[in-house]
């Protein structure tokens, strides 16, 4: 019996070692604390980073004298998502560093290279990025600062990720001092994952979910909008002086009626609302390999009436990253289940033979089926009858929510938001898009055209 006991212990230990090598070693190998990666470059030429449709996004050019230069054919277009290979690295160049510096060339070839003292070709990293979508997002965002992210809700594949202002990764080493000292623009900040913006009216998604949880008969909601809601401290006005008249919940959402949401907000249980936001990834590290900022939501018993009303329609002290909004939208599109966002599809050796596949994985179920159905209905109403009419036409069925978030005390300056998704039943494809245009005015005017361009590019 003692023999078998020890046999069991040793077998378990060996099994654990195998398990560690297969499943956990990646986390440790790619840890920034692990300094072993640097040594690989001596024997391997760094591999390429490519888009899902085969466009080279980063490559190492070897000169005749053996000097190596990392080249990014599309310059700033993929700056934040692909990253750079100098000054501490960022983006895919950083977290796929190990993959790029390993060679799975054929064994005999490696032996031959060893004899001739030549470097082995490193593995290529094939991303989930869609060149056409990235190009569209980059072009349509134009000279504005802001963030665009497109994802596939059923898998979590990131299709496009643009952050502006940007930089040219080809010359970043030379430009470094200028970029770092330019604190006003924070060029290196990936605004998709690290940019904290007031969510404006897109936040009404959260307020609506909380209202539906507290009031099972949410269909019975009714409110008479006169354009102004008289508060004790200050009045709330609807955007652009609109008067929406009598509305139910769906109409309030579609019209993005601030006074109706101020009314809803005052009736909500504050601690329950905080709990809902916490469960929907506020104050949480988002599941992605890029550095992220935590979204912030503040509402408690000490909040004043005015703060409560403001919070209900996305002003107040609430701040969100575009990625966070994208993940919640994805979960709604995917009937409540959130997939972990990922950007590396697989790695292959230089001859194109797959080395490692990365599969979609579920993060968890954030919302139940019924909540999602109602939310989908409302987001559809925004497009058919409300502020999101700009994405109505096309060979797809679009859903979404717009937002115009005030960010300074000077009245009128707003960030334009759109978050939503589009489905094409025939192609059986769904794409989720979140757009923020800094100082872009209203979401319907500046953010929606970008989303529309992405939907068109995706389904055509």
């Amino acid at each position, binding site marked *: 019996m*003692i*023999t078998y006991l*020890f*046999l069991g*212990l*040793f077998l*378990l*230990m*060996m099994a*654990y*070692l*195998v398990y*560690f*090598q297969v499943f*956990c*070693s*990646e*986390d*440790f*190998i790619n*840890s920034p*604390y*692990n*300094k*072993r*990666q640097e*040594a690989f470059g001596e*024997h391997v030429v760094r591999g390429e980073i490519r888009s899902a449709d085969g466009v080279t996004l980063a490559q190492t050019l070897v000169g005749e004298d053996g000097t190596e230069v990392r080249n990014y054919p599309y310059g700033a277009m993929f700056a934040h998502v692909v990253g750079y290979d100098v000054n501490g690295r960022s983006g895919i160049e950083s977290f796929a560093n*190990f993959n790029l510096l390993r060679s799975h060339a054929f064994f005999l070839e*490696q*032996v031959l290279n*060893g*004899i001739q*003292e030549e470097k082995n070709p490193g593995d290529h990293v094939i991303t989930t990025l869609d060149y056409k979508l990235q190009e569209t997002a980059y072009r349509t965002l134009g000279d504005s600062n802001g963030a665009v992210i497109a994802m596939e809700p059923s898998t979590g594949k990131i299709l496009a990720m643009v952050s502006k202002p940007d930089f040219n990764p080809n010359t970043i080493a030379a430009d470094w001092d200028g970029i770092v000292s330019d604190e006003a623009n924070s060029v290196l900040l990936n605004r998709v994952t690290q940019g904290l913006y007031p969510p404006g009216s897109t936040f009404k998604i959260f307020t609506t979910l909380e209202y539906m949880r507290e009031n099972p008969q949410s269909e019975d909601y009714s409110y008479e909008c006169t354009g102004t809601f008289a508060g004790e401290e200050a009045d709330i006005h609807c955007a652009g002086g609109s008067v929406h008249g009598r509305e139910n919940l769906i109409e309030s959402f579609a019209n993005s009626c601030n006074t109706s949401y101020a009314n809803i907000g005052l009736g909500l249980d504050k601690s329950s609302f905080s709990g809902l936001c916490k469960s929907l990834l506020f104050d949480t590290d988002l599941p992605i390999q890029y550095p992220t900022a935590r979204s912030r939501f503040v509402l408690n018993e000490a909040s004043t009436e005015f703060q409560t009303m403001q919070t209900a329609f996305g002003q107040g002290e609430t701040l969100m990253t575009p990625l966070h909004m994208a993940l919640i939208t994805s979960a709604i599109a995917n009937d409540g289940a959130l997939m972990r966002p990922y950007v590396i599809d697989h790695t292959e050796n230089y001859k194109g033979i797959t080395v490692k596949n990365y599969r979609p994985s579920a993060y968890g179920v954030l919302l139940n089926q019924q909540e999602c159905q109602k939310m989908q209905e409302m987001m559809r109403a925004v497009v058919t009858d409300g502020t999101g009419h700009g994405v109505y036409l096309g060979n797809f069925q679009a859903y979404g929510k717009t937002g115009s978030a005030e960010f300074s005390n000077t009245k009128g300056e707003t960030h334009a938001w759109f978050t939503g998704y589009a489905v094409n039943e025939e192609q059986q494809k769904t794409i989720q898009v979140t757009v923020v245009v800094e100082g872009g005015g209203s979401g319907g005017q500046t953010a929606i055209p970008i989303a529309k361009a992405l939907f068109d590019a995706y389904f055509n």
Partner: protein
Amino acid sequence: MVHLITELSKYTMLILMALFTYQGFSALKRNCPPAKQARKVRRQTAYVYLFHCNAYAVLWFSMENPDLLVLYVGQVLFFTAIYILYSTAYRKASRLVVNNMCMLLAIGFVILTRLNFETAMRQFQLAGGSAGISMVIPFLIDRVRSGFRKLTWLYALAGIGMLGAVAVLGVATKGANLSFTIAGITIQPSEFIKIVFVFLIASMLYTSTGFLQVVKVTVAAGLHVVILVLSRDLGGALIFFVAYLVMLYVATRKPLYFFGGLAGGSIASVIAYFLFNHVRVRVVAWQDPLGHFELEGYQVSHSLFAIGTGGWFGMGLNQGMPGRIPEVKKDFIFSAIAEELGGFFALCLILVCFCCFLMFLNIAMQMKDRFYKYVALGLGTIYGFQVFLSIGGNIKFIPSTGVTLPLVSYGGSSLLSTLMIFSIIQGLYLMHQKEGGARNDRVKEKTKQPGGKQPGEKQNAKDSTGSR
């Protein structure tokens, strides 16, 4: 060129190690005929020399240190001396155990040379000295025989006295009061008390296994364990406790004692967790090493960086960065081996250690003298459990307890005590061979006759694992 040799040697050394491991286990099989077994054991010996030669060739090319040649030749002579001794003076000893011992020593020499030449030199000197001392043990055991079982009080005094002295007087090394220094030589008594402890428990259980005696044994073992815990040697305490538990169970055959002891041990561990900060630190490092990288998890994180980056085939000798792992020469030597020689090699290493353990238990099963049966069992448990604690801690399978990997890690006390354990086992193989020798010869004669199946035949085949 150097790169090519290193790369190719990764695979050749792995193949040699895998063949060595395979032959070791196939020679263990019960139905393996003695002639075939002798062939396998001879091949194993060849693999030890080839692996050792291959590894030093890589080191010679990559380190470019001419002194390496001296060290290499010295070690070859050392192994040859051991083999000559065991094929002349101790012919009846187990060659399989000798092979495993030499392979583990060779792996230790190689990886220590790669880590630090001076350390490797020192380790080699220590190995030479220790081997010299422990060589007389089989002879001693064979001669003294029953004398050892009567020294109960001496064992108890020596064990508790020494451990207590160290706990009170000893200097604190790395948070544990483990060693004292005499004339410039630092000795860790607990390494030797392990052996004395096994003899103590064996002699007590030999006298009687009645309830009163079990209580006495428990008190004696408890004293050892408590002193070790107080001197913060958690790994040592665990090893002593498990050895006591296993010996008690086999002597009494009462599962209640075993599982009761296990339950008691678990409760004690939980209490220790809340009572001692240094226990909590180990557990924290085990749960999330990267999350506590700066402090608690630093060592385990570096160990896992090494093992992970090494992958299945390793970085190649001298191509990794094992020097970054704290305590790599002692407690974390397994990580260095996994990094440079690879995950597959590391798995083989675990199997070789397990093969040693099986050989220890094998002789325990066969000894007719109950005292030596318990001794073999206790020493086997100590060896097996120490390997488990060491490797398990390195790979984050269990919290790290800071124990060495026997025969591989650097350290004189660990080396000498392990070589002594191996020698005692060899002594038992010799003794057993003499006990059963006459009978074996008889059986052999009879099996030549047609249909001469004897009840003792199976036993004979099993015995022959220990002999050539």
